[in-house]
C-alpha cells in the first residue's frame, strides 16, 4: 500500500459512491414493490420525494466518478517513477493484476451512470414518471458495478508494492507479444484508419438520418459504441504513432503526459462524451413509444444525437490534426 493523497482521494470517491449505490439499490427495491402513482398516500409522496435525493446524489457520484477516472489515470501516470520498469500509467497499472480491471470498471461505471442520468431526466419530464421502475431496476444493476469497481480499486492500491518489477507500454503494446493489447497494436495502420473512417461515416450517416428524417437512432447508438472501440484500437495502432512522431511507440496512456501536450485529453474527452450521449440516445429510443413521453422524447433524442455528433466531430478533428501536424510518415 502506498500512502498518497491522490489514492486517498480516489478511495474516498469510491467509498462515497459505494454508500450511495447501496442505499439507492435498497430504495430501488422498495420502489419496485410499492411504487403506485395513483395512490395519494403519504408513503407514495415520500417515495416521490426521495427520488429527488437519489437523482441529486447520483448526479454528484457521476461527477465525482468522472473526475476520479481522470485522476486515476493521471495519478497512475505520475506514480510510474515509483516502480522499476514503469514509464507511464501502463507500468503502474501492471504492478498487480487488479490495475487494468479497476480502470475498466471505472470506465464502465462512467458510461452506466451517464446513461442512468439521461434516463432519469427523461423520466422526470413525463407526467406519470413512466420510467421510474426501469430506472430503479437499472440502479439495482448499477450498484454491484459501482461496488465491484470500488473493491477492485481498493485491492489494487492495497497491493501496490514498489519493489515489483513491472512491464510498461514498450513491452505491452508490441505486435510480437501475445494477448489482446498486442493484437490491437498489430492491427495494420491502414486497416485501423479505414475502420475508423468507416465507423465515423456510419455515425455521421445514421446521425444525419435521425436528425433529418427521425429514423435510425438505434443504428446511431450502435455505431457510436462501435466507433468508441474502433477509435481506441486506432489510437493504439496508429494515432499514437502520429502524436509521438515515433514509428513504434503505441502507448494509449503516454498521450496524456505533458511532453505530448496532453493531447490524449483532446482525443479521449470528446470520444467518451460522444459515446455516453450516443448510448443515452439509444436507450431513450427504446422508450419512445410510452404515452406520456411521446411528445417529449423525440426532441430530447435529437438533442442528444446532435451533441454526440459534435463530440465525435471534435474527436475526428483531433485525429486529423494529429495526423496532419505529425512529422511521421507512415504511408507513402
Amino acid at each position, binding site marked *: 500500500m502506498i500512502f498518497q493523497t491522490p489514492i486517498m482521494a480516489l478511495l474516498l470517491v469510491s467509498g462515497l459512491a459505494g454508500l450511495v449505490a447501496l442505499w439507492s439499490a435498497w430504495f430501488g427495491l422498495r420502489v419496485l414493490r410499492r411504487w403506485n*402513482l*395513483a395512490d*395519494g*398516500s*403519504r408513503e407514495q*409522496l415520500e417515495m*416521490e*420525494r426521495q427520488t429527488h435525493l437519489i437523482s441529486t446524489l447520483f448526479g454528484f457520484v457521476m461527477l465525482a466518478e468522472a473526475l476520479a477516472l481522470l485522476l486515476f489515470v493521471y495519478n497512475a501516470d505520475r506514480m510510474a517513477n515509483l516502480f522499476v520498469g514503469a514509464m507511464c500509467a501502463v507500468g503502474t497499472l501492471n504492478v498487480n493484476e487488479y490495475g487494468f480491471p479497476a480502470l475498466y470498471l471505472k470506465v464502465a461505471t462512467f458510461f452506466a451512470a451517464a446513461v442512468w442520468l439521461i434516463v432519469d431526466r427523461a423520466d*422526470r419530464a413525463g*407526467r*406519470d*414518471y413512466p420510467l421510474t421502475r426501469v430506472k430503479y431496476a437499472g440502479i439495482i444493476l448499477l450498484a454491484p458495478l459501482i461496488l465491484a469497481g470500488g473493491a477492485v480499486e481498493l485491492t489494487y492500491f492495497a497491493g501496490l508494492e514498489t519493489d515489483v518489477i513491472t512491464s510498461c507500454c514498450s513491452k505491452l503494446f508490441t505486435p510480437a507479444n501475445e494477448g489482446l493489447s498486442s493484437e490491437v497494436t498489430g492491427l495494420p495502420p491502414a486497416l485501423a484508419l479505414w475502420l475508423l473512417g468507416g465507423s465515423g461515416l456510419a455515425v455521421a450517416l445514421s446521425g444525419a438520418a435521425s436528425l433529418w428524417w427521425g429514423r435510425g437512432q438505434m443504428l446511431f447508438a450502435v455505431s457510436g459504441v462501435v466507433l468508441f472501440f474502433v477509435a481506441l484500437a486506432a489510437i493504439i495502432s496508429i494515432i499514437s504513432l502520429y502524436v509521438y512522431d515515433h514509428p513504434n511507440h503505441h502507448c494509449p496512456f503516454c498521450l496524456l503526459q505533458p511532453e505530448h501536450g496532453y493531447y490524449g485529453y483532446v482525443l479521449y474527452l470528446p470520444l467518451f462524451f460522444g459515446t455516453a450521449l450516443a448510448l443515452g440516445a439509444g436507450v431513450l429510443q427504446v422508450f419512445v413509444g410510452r404515452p406520456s413521453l411521446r411528445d417529449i422524447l423525440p426532441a430530447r433524442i435529437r438533442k442528444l444525437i446532435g451533441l454526440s455528433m459534435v463530440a465525435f466531430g471534435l474527436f475526428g478533428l483531433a485525429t486529423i490534426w494529429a495526423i496532419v501536424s505529425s512529422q511521421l510518415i507512415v504511408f507513402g
Partner: protein
Amino acid sequence: MITLSAVTKLYNEGRPNQMAALDGIDLTVPGDAVTVLTGPSGSGKTTLLSLIGCMARPTSGRVHLNGDMVSGLPESFLTGLRRTTFGFVFQRFNLVRGLSVIENVRLPAVPLGPDHVELTERAMARLEHLGLADKADIPVEYLSGGETQRAAIARALINDAPILIADEPTANLDTVLVNRFLDIVADLRAEGRTVIMTSHDPRIFTASLVDNVVRMVDGRLDTEEAPA
C-alpha cells in the same frame, strides 16, 4: 373551472393523531368569477383552498382543472401547474424578509428561467399598476400592512396566472384598505381573471362583486343555508 369529487384530506395519516380536514367534498368552482369560501376557523376552508390551488394532493377523491385530472400528478407537475395557473396571496402575505419588494415579486418566476430584463420590466409594470413603484427597492419589512398586501398581490400575478388564490386577504386591514382590496379584485375581474379566496370577513363575502359563496363546517360543505 375546477371540479372536486369525493375529496378527502387526512393529516397525520396512519398516526394516532390522524385528523380528517376534509371529508367527501363535491364542489365545482366556476371560472371567470369570484368565489369565497367561508366558515368558522377549523372548518377546513384553507385546506380546501390548498387543494383547489394544487398545493397538495387529496388523500382520496379527484380534482379536475379545466377537465384534466390533476390529483394524481407527481409533485413536480403540480408545482409546474401552480406556477403558471395560480397566483397565491397568503394570510400573512409571506414575503421573504430581507429581500427588496422587486426581488420578492420576481421570485415565482425564478424557476422558469426568465429573461432578467424582461422580468424586471414586467414586475415594475405590475408594481406601478398597484401604486408601489417607488417602493420597489426597499426591503419588504419596511412596508405598511396595505403595501405588504399589494406587494403580495404583485408577486402572485408575476407569472400572469389566470386564477388568483387568496387566504384571508383582509384579516388585519381596516375598512379603507378592505375597500382598496375590493377595487383591486374588481380590476382583476376586468382583466378576466378568476379569484378564489377564503374569508370570514362579512365585508368580503357580502361584497357585490362576489359571485359565489361556499360555506363550510367541520370539513364538509354547509348545505343547510342557501348561498347569499
